[in-house]
């Protein structure tokens, strides 16, 4: 009924030929920054929170020590130490760290850092035993792993 006949515009189709390329670029970004989890956690831990934390630079020269209660256990269990995929005890700790170190490249050995990822409620006795064992094996650089405190 209108007086003017509208001209029908033809909308050109969107060219999506470059879409895969865009997606690929994002994909490559994620592929580069991702590092797959190598260890399966056997202990459960919740790290303490800190404010002035430093970043551990060389990832390849870090040995992680996990301390917490067994995942499959209950509350009454004692705290256990895990390196790589296995439980160790204080006596075995030095040996495991030494064998890990022998697998590293010479540059990594120099800047080797042991990152202690321990649960908040771990008794300090266990932590100082671990530190003592690390001193004995000559791993002096350690890192108390923590989460950044979110709310001030």
């Amino acid at each position, binding site marked *: 009924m209108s007086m003017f006949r509208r001209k029908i515009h033809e909308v050109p189709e969107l060219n*999506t*030929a470059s*879409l*895969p390329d865009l*997606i*690929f670029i*994002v*994909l490559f970004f*994620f*592929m580069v*920054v*991702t*590092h*797959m*989890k190598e260890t399966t956690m056997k202990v459960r831990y919740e790290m*303490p929170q*800190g*404010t*002035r*934390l*430093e*970043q*551990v630079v060389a*990832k390849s020269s*870090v040995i992680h020590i996990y301390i917490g209660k067994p995942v499959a256990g209950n509350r009454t269990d004692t705290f256990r130490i895990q390196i790589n995929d296995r439980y160790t005890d204080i006596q075995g700790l030095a040996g495991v760290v030494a064998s890990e170190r022998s697998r590293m490249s010479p540059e990594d050995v120099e800047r080797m*850092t042991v*990152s202690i990822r*321990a*649960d*908040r*409620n*771990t*008794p*300090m*006795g*266990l*932590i*100082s035993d671990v*530190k*003592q064992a*690390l*001193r*004995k094996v*000559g*791993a*002096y*650089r*350690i*890192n*108390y*792993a*923590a*989460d*950044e405190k979110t709310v001030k």
Partner: protein
Amino acid sequence: MFRMRKPRRVPGLNTTSTADISFMLLTFFLVTTSMDTDKGLLRKLPPMPQENIERAADVKKRNIMSITVDSDNRLYCDGKLVSTSALRRQVALFVENKDNSPAMPEKTVMNIPLLGRCSVAANHVIAIQVDRNASYDTYFNMQNAIVLAYSDLRDRQAHVRFRRPYKKCTKEQREAIAACYPIRISEAVSQGGFR
């Protein structure tokens, strides 16, 4: 060669689904990425004493600040019960020793590059003693408070000297300021069992 070959037309490859496939890969990586950054407090352990002889460190009393954590996770600084924020202030006051008071660590004049002559509390020691039943969380918060105290001092010094926070300084400037406020922490290892 007698007859002309009809040029065959190659049909264009249909690439509509490439985006979908790469989307799927992308989602996979998005889900599996943890981006977990390894952060924490870096510390250097002292080497083992030779032949198990514990050398009694010869430190004057005024240079020592003792921090104790008991089995009920209480913090004591020089025998007095403190909170972590109070500890932070006390450590900063102790290390700085602005008025050169005789109860606080003695100062030695040192020649530091970029800064010139500074009086540095070079012999002070923060002695930490932790009960074996104390929790790691308390210990960590205490360490964090000490780190904060030192970084407060360093930040202040960086502002005075270079007019920018410690983090923004160049490597040489940071080294100079770190030499001005050296971190000296000693930890006593206690033996025995724990809960």
